[in-house]
């Protein structure tokens, strides 16, 4: 009985202890509940209310490019396009489902299927049979690997047979999904814009409500209206696949580009990227933590890129191209032997007072394809010895430095310096003053100027004696040349320009050659700037291609002006105006007086041309069988600079045709091009220029 008694007391005691513990446990629950709800409740609520704001940028069409008369050069061709804007946190399963839904509406090209990788296909098979394929992993593998590694391994366990077994339909779904995968959250991505038929477009447009994120929209394609004409000047843009250049990714991303944006990669498209790109429409999306969009607001209105109006006259440009091409063909066909190394003919036509480039043409003979192609960038890129065309600069350098006086006479006969080949003009011209020296293109006159820059003042120079030579003289002379744009950048608004080759001028002969354009090399645009400086009375103007930037317009008319590129004088030649007049007179006589080197071609032209001819000796080097460069021929460069009318110049030009054969009776291609492009100019613009002038 005592036992029984004990039992009766023992159990309630234990129950009491136990229940006391239960009481503690429940008290802990309530205290913790209080901590979570009352102490931290506010901050948890704030966390729920916190929303995330994202800005999505919608691309706008690029600016167009027009010629000086408002004729379109580069346009945007509208395309039907299907775009996809994924929501935040979109799952692969959802995208696959969407791809399957799209299949009946969207035609899939063979090329899209060809681009598919093995990985694309594996991922598809995995998504389709997730459980089964995941089950191929052994338990040990599942334990040892993390989720990502398990996924990779699972993909590898998909056999080639399974990949082979994919049907045509499935491949199309994979191809569509691949396009969908390119899109970033909330940012529209064009998934297809080529070969979309109107029927296809309409069918998708009708079913948009069933296709989340899909939109029927328009895209554009860059259209270069005039084909190859000016193509290398206008440049090109990247494709959407290429997007922004990888090596400059940071540069573009910090400037608000998306990775799939098309950007200018060469030419004016690149140089004026900032204005052509336009302003993207920016939409501020407010989303909850789960990614649900609760608000959207346009914070920046989109605006198509601004339009460029070029200084180029496209009609005249085409004529110049035609002239240059025909002449190059003619020169090659008339003397096929001597002119076998002739490949290029380059010409620039610009307004000498403003620097506006009217036309720029370079025709290149592509030896491998046996084709003539337009490569107008060569007028900026390629530098050649210009021969006597630079003599105007040489004479002015002599006058300006005081090394010669106006009307200074030198006797033109061969100069024989010891240990140096005899240096002479094409004939003994006898005593010539500065103007005559230009008219008849006296080398010897320039040699004396060169010698004086080097410190050698003897005249006539005694045969076979040594000449004094201070190499610093070359730099002095070049500094005078730089004032005309020779040997320095012209400042043209293009992505690249060469400044040409600068020799080390160790010997007096080098300095003498420099004075006749037979040493340093110059680009065509440099020569055009040089002749413009002489034509306009000593102002070195910056050549330019973009005349105005216009706001985009809705219709085909040009929009209002955003910015005008005004003519810019880079420097003024610091010289007595009468000295410049002497050079101008010399240039006039070259074309208009019997005995002038260009008289035969230019006599009687009504538009009063002036200019300077040039022939430079050149050599062609080609690699031999061992890859070593060897001289294969002596050639000559034919150059010509000029302007018109003489008294009030409105057009200037520079022409270089390198590497013609060095033979008598050479086809004077420089004059043939020059006269034709001048004739064409005055034929087209005579009288019209008056209007423009009053306008300016």
């Amino acid at each position, binding site marked *: 009985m005592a*036992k029984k008694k004990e*039992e009766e007391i*023992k*159990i*309630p005691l*234990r*129950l009491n202890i*136990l*229940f006391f513990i*239960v*009481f503690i*446990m*429940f008290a*802990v*629950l*309530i205290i*913790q*509940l*209080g901590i*979570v*709800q*009352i102490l*931290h*409740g*506010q*901050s*948890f*609520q704030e*966390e*729920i209310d916190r929303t995330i704001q994202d800005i999505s940028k919608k691309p706008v069409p690029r600016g167009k490019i027009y010629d000086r008369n408002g004729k379109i050069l580069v346009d945007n061709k509208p395309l039907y396009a299907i775009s996809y804007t994924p929501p935040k946190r979109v799952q692969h399963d959802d995208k696959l489902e969407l791809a399957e839904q799209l299949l009946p509406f969207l035609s899939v090209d063979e090329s899209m299927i060809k681009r598919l990788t093995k990985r694309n296909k594996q991922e598809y098979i995995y998504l389709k049979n997730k459980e089964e394929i995941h089950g191929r992993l052994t338990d040990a593998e599942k*334990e040892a690997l993390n989720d990502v590694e398990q996924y990779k391994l699972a993909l590898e366990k998909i056999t080639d047979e399974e990949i082979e077994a994919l049907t045509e339909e499935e491949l199309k779904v994979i191809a569509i999904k691949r396009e969908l995968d390119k899109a970033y959250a909330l940012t529209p991505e064009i998934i297809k814009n080529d070969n979309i038929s109107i029927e296809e477009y309409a069918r998708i447009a009708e079913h948009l409500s069933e296709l989340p994120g899909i939109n029927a929209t328009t895209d554009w394609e860059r259209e270069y209206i005039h084909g190859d004409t000016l193509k290398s000047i206008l440049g090109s843009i990247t494709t959407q696949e290429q997007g922004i250049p990888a090596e400059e990714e940071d540069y573009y991303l910090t400037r608000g580009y998306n990775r799939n944006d098309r950007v200018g990669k060469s030419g004016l498209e690149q140089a004026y990227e900032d204005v052509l790109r336009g302003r993207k429409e920016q939409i501020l999306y407010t989303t909850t933590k*789960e990614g649900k969009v609760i608000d959207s607001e346009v914070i920046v209105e989109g605006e198509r890129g601004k339009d460029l109006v070029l200084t180029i006259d496209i009609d005249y440009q085409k004529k110049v191209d035609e002239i240059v091409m025909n002449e190059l063909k003619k020169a090659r066909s008339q003397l096929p032997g001597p002119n076998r190394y002739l490949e290029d003919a380059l010409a620039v036509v610009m307004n000498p007072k403003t620097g506006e480039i009217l036309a720029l043409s370079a025709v290149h003979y592509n030896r491998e394809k046996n084709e003539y192609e337009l490569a107008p960038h060569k007028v900026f890129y390629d530098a050649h010895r210009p021969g006597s065309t630079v003599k105007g600069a040489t004479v002015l350098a002599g006058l300006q430095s005081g090394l010669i006086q106006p009307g200074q006479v030198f006797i033109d006969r061969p100069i024989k310096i010891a240990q140096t080949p005899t240096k002479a003009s094409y004939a003994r011209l006898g005593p010539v003053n500065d103007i005559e020296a230009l008219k008849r293109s006296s080398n010897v006159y320039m040699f004396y100027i060169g010698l004086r820059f080097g410190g050698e003042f003897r005249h006539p120079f005694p045969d076979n004696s040594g000449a004094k030579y201070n190499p610093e003289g070359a730099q002095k002379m070049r500094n005078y040349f730089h004032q005309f744009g020779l040997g320095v950048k012209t400042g043209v608004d293009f992505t690249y320009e060469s400044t040409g080759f600068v020799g080390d001028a160790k010997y007096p002969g080098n300095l003498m050659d420099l004075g006749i354009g037979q040493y340093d090399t110059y680009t065509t645009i440099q020569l055009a700037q040089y002749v413009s400086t002489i034509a306009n009375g000593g102002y070195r103007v910056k050549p330019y291609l973009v005349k105005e930037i216009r706001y985009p317009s809705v219709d085909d008319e040009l929009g209002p002006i955003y910015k005008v590129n005004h003519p810019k004088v880079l420097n003024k030649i610091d010289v007595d105006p009468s000295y410049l007049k002497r050079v101008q007179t010399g240039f006039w006589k070259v074309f208009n007086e019997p005995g002038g080197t260009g008289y035969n071609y230019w006599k009687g032209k009504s538009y009063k041309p002036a200019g300077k001819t040039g022939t430079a000796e050149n050599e062609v080097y080609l690699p031999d069988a061992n890859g070593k460069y060897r001289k294969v021929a002596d050639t000559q460069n034919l150059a010509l600079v000029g302007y018109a009318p003489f008294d009030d110049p409105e057009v200037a030009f520079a022409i270089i045709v390198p590497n013609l054969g060095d033979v008598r009776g050479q086809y004077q291609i420089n004059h043939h091009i020059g006269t034709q492009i001048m004739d064409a100019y005055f034929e087209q613009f005579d009288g019209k220029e008056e209007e423009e002038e009053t306008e300016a």
Partner: protein
Amino acid sequence: MFKSRQSHYLHLDLILFLLFFIVISLLAINNAQQLGQYNDNFVVKHLVFYMLGIMLAAAIQFVDLEQLYKTSFYLYILGVLSLVILHFSPESIAKPVNGAKSWFNNLPFISIQPSEFTKLFLILFLAYLIFRHQQKYAQQTIASDLWLIAKIFGVTLIPAFFIWKQPDLGTTLVFFFIAGILIILSGVDWRLIAVILTTGIAAATAAVLLIVNFPDFAQNVLKIEPHQINRVLTWFDPSSQDSNDRYHLDLSLMTVGSGQLTGKGMNSAQVQIPEAHTDFIFAIIGESFGFVGGAVVILVFFLFLYRLVILGMKSAEFSPYASYICYGFFALILIHTFQNIGMTIGIVPITGIPLLFISYGGSTTLSTMMMFGIIYRIATEQSKQESFLFN
């Protein structure tokens, strides 16, 4: 005395408890599906389960305690058999859910979670076992106590093993908790209890320390499931893990916490939390009804447990078997309530055990209502016996 005779069959307090649970449960499940994440309407389904459960509980009122006592063994065998069958069932009728093979599913119309019923049957059989033992060994010795403890563990171990293999560690631990409480309340010598408790606590501490300090060893040598290791780690040091559990706990705390003092009211759920209608139902209660509502629910559970203990104590005088049943149910509800609410508010690791009476779930509701029916039946018996004593 007329009044007391009337009340033999009517236990208003128990009925009010049940009504409170049903109402809270339906309101919470309704709020849990506000965010449109489910296709089913769980409120209606849950109400149907409750109706079935109430019918089941009503039916139990016609069963004598003597009859229940006699069938205890067979029910236990039935429970263990169902687990064994489940263990060897093909996936076609027992497809793993969230990695655990705990359900007979893919059957027409119904899916059954046998462990929920086995829990109940185990309690009945353990009560039977303890009662039989005490009858047989009227003279209590250390040896007889040890024999009793061995029997209790043995009987628990068999179903627990199969549940552990599902794998469902949470429910396995519930089984051992029930066994442990019944050992304490079976009256075995306190020194044995002390030994067992010390060993148990030491083992648990060692396990936790091992998992925290040598997770790789625990996983590779002891073959503990990685997700269980993660749970312990998350709970032990919330900042150390960026796991799925951390995500669950954050969501749960955010849900409960944002309810603040008075809650957001009906139909105003803001956070989409997985398993909101089942394991994380208390998070929804906290969000909807705030600290006030949450504390009331905890208090009601506490009062219900108190009622069970009192019933157990009173039943001991006429039927120790009935009292052990009460203690078993007490242990069951205690551990479910504490563990479930505790994980929701971040004081114990996350496991998949439901909040009895409140969480959505067919098997759980049915087995809980069977349990409730048995409690009600015991209360009736107790009421009758009490009136005999006083008359």
